[in-house]
């Protein structure tokens, strides 16, 4: 079935936005509780590799996803231990986690490649080991919406459900109130008998699980393989988008969709300017393609420049 350019764009946008929303939900809850985890990039990277290796070894995609979540949570545990429990600076620990993850995944991946070459094994996952798109029965037949929204990876649907759940949790439950209080007035929480350290550590590990799952999405769903430093800054963009969304689930989703749209648009434009007959696209032929690759980051910067001032974030962030 061939689909129109717009449907394709919408579909790519959602596919690109989903892992960012997933990782962003964890980061959002963490930041509301007063923990900013710069190491999210490293968590995603660890999750991506762990998911690939688990899926490869076990032969099951679901086991891979679990492996990714556990790896992300474990790395976040190290982060939480150093920052929340031992009281080291969050930004600094996060940076260390990023370096550690880059080194560890790089080392393991290169060793794995050498090993798989000597055993003549493919570094691409089979259908059983990875996830494929899952068209929802019935809904996928709707024109435009069907192929764009309801023909996605399973984790996209889970992410959507989670977003609704997290939004409800933060706004309407005692737990959500406690999390937000943790970020705005940790002293009050201590006075009210809540252990700030325990709660922040729990939230951090949950966020790590989210980031790990997002990493798994990149490796075992989108590409069916792994590549050195495959997250390529997505984690950092997620950090920017959480702030862009003013620490709300709605804002975060809007930001991720916007970013995903710009990203898929730039990819499409890059390809289309050579095939299309449109005069505008034709004129773009002479632009360097790196200009298009730069676009999402510039957009994120601009978005921050425009919106960062409007509403203050959690008062005790990174303290």
């Amino acid at each position, binding site marked *: 079935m061939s689909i129109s350019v717009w449907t394709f764009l919408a579909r790519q946008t959602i596919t690109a936005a989903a892992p960012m929303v997933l990782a962003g939900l964890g980061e959002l809850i963490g930041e509301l509780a007063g923990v900013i985890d710069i190491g999210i990039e490293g968590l995603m990277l660890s999750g991506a590799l762990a998911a690939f290796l688990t899926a490869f070894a076990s032969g099951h995609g679901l086991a891979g996803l679990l492996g990714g979540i556990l790896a992300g949570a474990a790395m976040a545990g190290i982060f939480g231990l150093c920052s929340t429990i*031992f009281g080291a600076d969050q930004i600094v*620990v996060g940076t260390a986690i990023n370096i550690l993850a880059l080194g560890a995944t*790089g080392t393991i991946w290169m060793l794995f490649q050498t090993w798989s070459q000597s055993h003549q094994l493919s570094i691409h996952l089979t259908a059983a080991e990875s996830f494929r798109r899952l068209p929802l029965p019935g809904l996928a037949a709707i024109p435009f919406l069907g192929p764009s929204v309801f023909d996605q990876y399973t984790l996209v649907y889970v992410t959507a459900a989670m977003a609704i759940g997290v939004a409800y949790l933060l706004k309407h439950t005692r737990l959500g109130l406690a999390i937000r209080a943790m970020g705005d007035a940790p002293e009050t929480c201590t006075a009210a008998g809540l252990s700030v350290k325990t709660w922040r550590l729990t939230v951090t590990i949950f966020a790590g699980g989210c980031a790990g799952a997002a990493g798994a999405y990149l490796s075992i769903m989108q590409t069916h393989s792994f590549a050195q430093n495959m997250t390529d800054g997505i984690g950092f963009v997620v950090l920017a988008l959480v*702030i862009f969304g003013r620490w709300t689930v709605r804002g975060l989703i809007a930001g991720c969709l916007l970013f995903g749209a710009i990203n898929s648009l730039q990819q499409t434009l890059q390809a289309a300017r050579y095939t299309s007959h449109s005069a505008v696209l034709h004129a773009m032929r002479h632009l360097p393609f790196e200009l298009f690759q730069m676009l999402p980051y510039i957009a994120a910067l601009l978005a*921050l420049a425009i919106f960062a001032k409007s509403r203050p974030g959690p008062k005790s962030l990174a303290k």
Partner: protein
Amino acid sequence: MAAGVVLLMLGLLGFAPDHVLWLWYRGSFGSRYALADTFTKACPLLLTGLAAAVTFRAGVFNIGAQGQLLMGAAMAVAMSTRWLSPHTAPWVGIPLCLLVGAMAGAMWGLLASMLEVFRRVPIVLSTILLNFAALYLVKILLHSFLQAHGTSAPQSSQVPGNFCLPILMKYTSLHAGIFLAVAIAAILEIVQTMTVFGFQYTATGLNHAAAKLAGIPTMSRQIQAMLIGAACAGLAGAMQILGVAHFMTAKMGNYGYAGIAVALLGRLDPIGVAIAAIFFGALDAGAQRAEESQLGLPHETANVIKGVVILVMLVAGAWSMRRTLRSGLWMAKDDEASNV
């Protein structure tokens, strides 16, 4: 402890730890050439380490050394291969290129500072995003203005001989730039410990609210720290071009990111940063040796060691800090909270 963790890991992965250590030593300190290699690799790390240390000390989380380094390198290439005649005398051309590189880095850092001052964009984020912007900008330049004639690869022309930094030792890349790097570290150490300016920006980083209350122009101190730090990173880029690579591709190594680790390990103190840079340089030189050997140990292992070392350092540092804080100093933090 960190070394123990890493050696244990190596053992688990099936590499004989003692053999790896031996190779590592041979590749980093084992001979004159190994030593020269260590110092060559330490030179950019010292500068990017200072870039992070100076800014972190002033409470500015400049993660953007990588982007600043790239911009510095690109401008140094533009000067030496495009704007200046290849026959420019070395004593004019080299300082000019290094200066322009440092200034390009400083401007890229200033961009982040301005976004913070005027639009309250957190520096942590803007500098990270600017790293990516710089990377693609440099790639565009290497595909157009800076591209070597007669090639389709994204790389610049060769830097003319007159612009190359003098090599200190035959058959190595150890270049005269290392003297400048060490001199800068020494100057920054003096500034930090002996001048009012140094005291003011350190105070700003330690307790922003208290520093402001004491009449220190915190905002301009932070911007100045950013300018100094980013200039160091830009200089590192220019030096890598004129001293080591002699032409430019977008792959400049991740000295910018490694610099953060160097700064942390050196406890944000210029002398400490210099020691840490040599340590990291030795790690890289040794890792290269271990990779080239029959063992084929990936050089990324060096990054694992770096990460573990920093985490252990941080925890140890935070632990000792907490002891100090318990003895009454924590009042300062309380003051800050009530001022916000």
